[in-house]
């Protein structure tokens, strides 16, 4: 994976340090700023290919490496069809990589578990359960009064007070997303895997949900891994942005965002950073 590493460069976009701090540091191989602590998520040399038509193998992931620290919000940005979803499936434990290591707290990934909850663009709120029943789904001891109370507390937290007994088909797309977020937060996952979580929402609701998510994350600290094609979404929320190359994908650039929330998406340094990320994605106009 040396070839992959040498293609990477790290950029630091400090709030105060504009200008030179934005420049790439070519040839740096360090994958993470973490020093002695065991990272929450540690990914090394991840490779995955699929059997395509006529027995051809299609390599999708080629040596992805990164670490995520406890409580960190890392966004992985990549072009459509680069293998983002496959990467997310592996990271969340639904698929096994062909090779490479994937450690959570320094131990091998245990497979899908409430330790890390996935929220995807398609949504998976059970339509046959009410909001309250959905929230209680992942709780042990099912329908106890204490669980119902907890569910109502989380429903209120995401702004669904009064809808506890509604069925999903009676809710709007934005409200469904809130149900899904609440259902994830209620089991107190250590990691949230967000796979283009808001991309099925309309633009305004998308913006609103970003703020909602940040508000909840300020209350309840989680490690977050966001996969998206929306650069602004990553810029708005993430502590660090990793840019994926086209397929077979690896991480071709890393950016640090040491900026407080709420962020302004239109500012000289954001514009510069956005341009650099879009440039990495091969999308920038001169």
């Amino acid at each position, binding site marked *: 994976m040396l070839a992959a590493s040498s293609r990477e460069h790290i950029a630091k976009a400090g709030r105060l340090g504009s200008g030179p701090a934005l420049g790439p540091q070519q040839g740096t191989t360090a994958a993470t700023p973490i020093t002695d602590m065991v990272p929450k998520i540690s990914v090394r040399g991840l490779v995955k290919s699929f059997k395509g038509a006529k027995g051809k193998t299609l390599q999708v992931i080629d040596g992805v490496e990164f670490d995520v620290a406890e409580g960190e919000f890392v966004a992985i940005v990549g072009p459509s069809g680069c293998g983002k979803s496959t990467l997310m499936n592996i990271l*969340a434990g*639904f698929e096994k990589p062909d090779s490479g290591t994937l450690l959570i707290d320094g131990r091998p990934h245990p497979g*899908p*578990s*409430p330790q*890390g*909850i*996935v929220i*995807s663009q*398609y*949504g*998976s709120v*059970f*339509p*046959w*359960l009410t909001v309250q029943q959905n929230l209680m*789904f*992942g709780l042990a001891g099912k329908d106890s009064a204490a669980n119902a109370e907890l569910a109502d507390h989380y429903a209120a937290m995401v702004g669904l007070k009064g809808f506890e007994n509604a*069925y*999903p*088909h009676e809710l709007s797309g934005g409200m469904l997303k809130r149900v899904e977020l609440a259902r994830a937060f209620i*089991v107190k996952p250590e990691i949230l895997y967000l796979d283009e979580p808001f991309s099925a929402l309309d633009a305004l609701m998308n913006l609103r949900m970003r703020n909602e998510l940040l508000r909840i994350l300020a209350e309840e600290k989680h490690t977050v891994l966001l996969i998206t094609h929306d650069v602004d979404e990553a810029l708005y929320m993430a502590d660090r942005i990793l840019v994926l190359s086209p397929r077979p994908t690896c991480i071709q650039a890393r950016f640090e965002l040491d900026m407080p929330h709420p962020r302004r998406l239109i500012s000289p340094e954001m514009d510069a950073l956005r341009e650099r990320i879009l440039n990495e994605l091969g999308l920038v106009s001169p």
Partner: protein
Amino acid sequence: MNPRLGKVLPPLAVITAVIAFWWWIVVHNESPIFPTPWQVVTGTLELAEDGTLWEHIGASLYRVGIGFGAAMLVGIPLGLWMGWVAGAYRTFNPIFQMLRPISPIAWIPLAILWFGIGEASPIFLIFISSVFPLIVQTTSGVHTIDRRYLRAAANFGVTRWVMFRRVVIPAVLPEIIIGMRIGIGVAWLVVVAAEMIALRSGLGYLIMDSRNAGNRYDLVIAAMIIIGVIGLLLDGITRLLEKLKTVRWRYVR
């Protein structure tokens, strides 16, 4: 015009026109056998008064109830199992796919051979006719469950049993209801056919008996209309299940 009235009026007009045409053609041809609509009404009243009509209806409904009930008890669990366990599907699906296109009527000789002429034969035929739609719909219902729901359940770390009970069964319920609608429809078709062969009660028997015992075509047509109305009611009752809160999601949007 009242919009409700606007919906009801056209089909009512068609029914009225059919009855009027029927009446006119019978009177015009001075048919000695074919009854007028009014003769059908008086014939029906005659049967209702001496109680035989209710006995026939009751006998047919009883057979459908037992046969279809047994089909649900066998078909739904079997369909769930075949849908959930890949090996069970591979093992049993071919034989069910082969038996399914055989008309239930074709089973009549075997039914008479095995069960003789009694209650068991028509019940067996109803069972045979409605068990396959139930199996097939339930199985394909399990197969078409959106994977994201299974993944979400796995993500929350639930056991396979909880997954089956709280995700698979509710997700398949709408398909099961469709299977029940198809099944009860076929069952009703078959009970009438089965009763025409060799029994002493039921609406099918009423049709054959009325013809054989003195060409009572008024009763033949009365029985036909009653069969149609009851079939409609059975479907309507099954459709009420679609109103259940836990399956509404399947029918909206």
